[in-house]
């Protein structure tokens, strides 16, 4: 019962909340969509925190998604001795983002101007991400070749969720820390619309092809 709630109902619930409230916030309060950058108040430490954090986490997140979407190509990538290289890179990126996160946390605590613009959700996000990246590193170090067993446990589980034939048996056997990693991930997804995380959705990719100048006409 608990397992089917945590690994079937909760993921559905979290994604539903994320979609509905993100759309709701976008339509009713678009003004509140912002990265809420504090660079203007503190510039130097931010560089050493924000850059490694973002580059680390974005690549790792994309790799998680990549395995999910194209498992075949991912499996080929891991074949033979390549897996060692692959995991070292992954671990390196994880450490990079973890160190960035710690610098960001220390900065938020120690710089009084940044503290002044910190909201409860900012602290919550810092805490949840520290746990998420920390548990990820712990899993990578203690349960070897996570990149491989991820493919045979979590990937089919998420696919089962996608195809509306949920099967929690793939993940219930996993160690506690992995379960927490999964649940925390879905919790993070659920709170996207209630935090500054909405800036992920606003990633300004169209900037790459739009013309430099923009004019708006009445008609």
């Amino acid at each position, binding site marked *: 019962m608990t397992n089917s709630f945590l690994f079937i109902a909760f993921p559905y619930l979290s994604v539903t909340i994320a979609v509905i409230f993100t759309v709701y916030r976008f339509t009713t309060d678009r003004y509140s*969509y912002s990265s*809420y950058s504090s660079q203007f108040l503190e510039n130097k430490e931010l560089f050493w925190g924000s850059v490694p954090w973002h*580059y680390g986490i974005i690549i790792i997140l994309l790799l998680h998604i990549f395995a999910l979407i194209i498992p075949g190509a991912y499996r080929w990538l891991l074949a033979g001795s390549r897996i060692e290289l692959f995991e070292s890179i992954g671990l390196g990126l994880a450490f990079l983002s973890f160190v960035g996160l710690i610098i960001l946390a220390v900065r938020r605590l120690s710089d009084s*101007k940044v503290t*002044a613009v910190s909201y409860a*959700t900012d602290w919550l996000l810092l805490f949840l991400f520290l746990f998420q990246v920390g548990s990820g590193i712990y899993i990578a170090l203690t349960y070897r070749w996570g990149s491989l067993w991820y493919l045979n446990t979590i990937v089919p589980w998420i696919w089962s969720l996608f195809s509306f034939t949920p099967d929690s048996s793939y993940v219930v056997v996993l160690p506690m820390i992995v379960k927490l990693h999964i649940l925390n991930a879905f919790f993070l997804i659920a709170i996207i619309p209630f935090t500054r995380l909405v800036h992920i959705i606003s990633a*300004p990719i169209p900037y*790459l092809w739009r013309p430099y100048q923009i*004019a708006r006409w009445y008609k």
Partner: protein
Amino acid sequence: MNIRTQISMVFHLDKCIGCHTCSIACKNLWTDRKGAEYMWWNNVETKPGTGYPTKWEEQSEYKGGWEIKGDILKPKMRGRWNRLLNIFSSPPMPTIDDYYEPWTYRYEDLFNAPEGDDQPTARPISLITGEPINIEAGPNWDDDLSGSTIYARNDPNLESLTDLEREQLNELERLVFFYIPRMCNHCLNPACVATCPSGAIYKRGEDGIVLIDQKKCRGWRMCVSGCPYKKSYYNWNTGKSEKCILCFPRLETGQVPACMHSCVGRIRYLGVMLYDADKIEDSAKVSDDKLVDTQLDTILDPFDEKVITAAKAQGIYDEVIIAAQNSPTYKFVKQWKVALPLHPEFRTLPMLFYVPPLSPIIAKMESGKFDVVNADSTAQTDHLQLFHSLADSRVPIKYLASLFSAGDTSKIDHIYKKLIAVRLYMRSITVGDVTQDDLKKAFETGNTNAEEAVMIYRLTSLPSIDERFVIPPMYREEAIESFGDVYDHKSGIGFGFMQKAERRL
């Protein structure tokens, strides 16, 4: 020809007394809010000086404006990929320390302090953290501080001067300064628009006012670095960037922008100009010395029949064309050619023009005391010497050229000669001690005539409010028509959206 209209401005620096009334009018109206306390959409700077934010002209550091790479015009902050890859922490962005930390005073201490021998004081506290601070900078902190080692001597424009000229500028007896009021230039080729990753900044098609869509801005802060004039500001409270809106709600109702209306020296002029939008990129792509000329070339003659026909064909209303014909800015900038853009070398084609200040150039030091007349001159030509000592000018022409003409001193020289001719002519009328020969010579060197001199004199010294500000009809009703039901807006007030401008989550 792709004709568009642009609200443009002229500031006559000879008339600026540096009273900051414009800044206060703007502050009271628009930026007296949390997160915006430090913003001065309009500010007045003492020159030579470092300005606000500190050394904003130093583009090697701030990377504002455009540059030509090969044959391509690019934001100085580099290309699109570079912007996105640096979005997590944009290195050239100024921080609050480059402006100043806003503060208030703990006034309640004055009333609540326990009885004692000392006078209670109200300690300054930061408006960001609420904690006591030591005030180290503030609005117009460098006011009138010519010659100071931390402000005037660090002016980036002094780089073009020789060591000797720089020393002369700092000699106590020659100390000189003038004021530059600055606000958003509502450029034809705005770099803030080009560097905004969200595409939130836009130019209004009908009048050229540059605005930041507050609902589209995501706080990526690139516009702050991108604008070479540092006239886009990041609101640390709302997570959005803000800038001068040229008081568009006032303009749309036929009122003059607050900074201009309140100007004590009446230095400000506002009018509409027609320009050719197809020429923008090419005119920003030429070498530094041609920039002013090409920019003036993009501005079209509103009296030219061909221009009028084309403008009408492109849907520009007759009233707007008439406003363009009556525009005081067109007269200063195109007809008389006595106003120049600030730092044209930033290549944004700014549409705020300045008449360079004449006053500080005319006084001269002779044998230890101030003498406005050159000692070598003869009595009859005192006034000629007085107005002709360009080479001995207190503010080196090179310095003004570095501000207004990308280093081309001949542009400044032409303007001065014309303005001097105007003064001589008016003197010949009011005082009557200028010979016809001298006058003729002055007109020749100034490339002007009696008729033009009178027009320049009138618009400089005696203009009515309707001559200073020629506001074209903005056809707001049509804008409303195209977005919604006119009856919803009938007799309604207000604009924008109704949510409070603050961070909520």
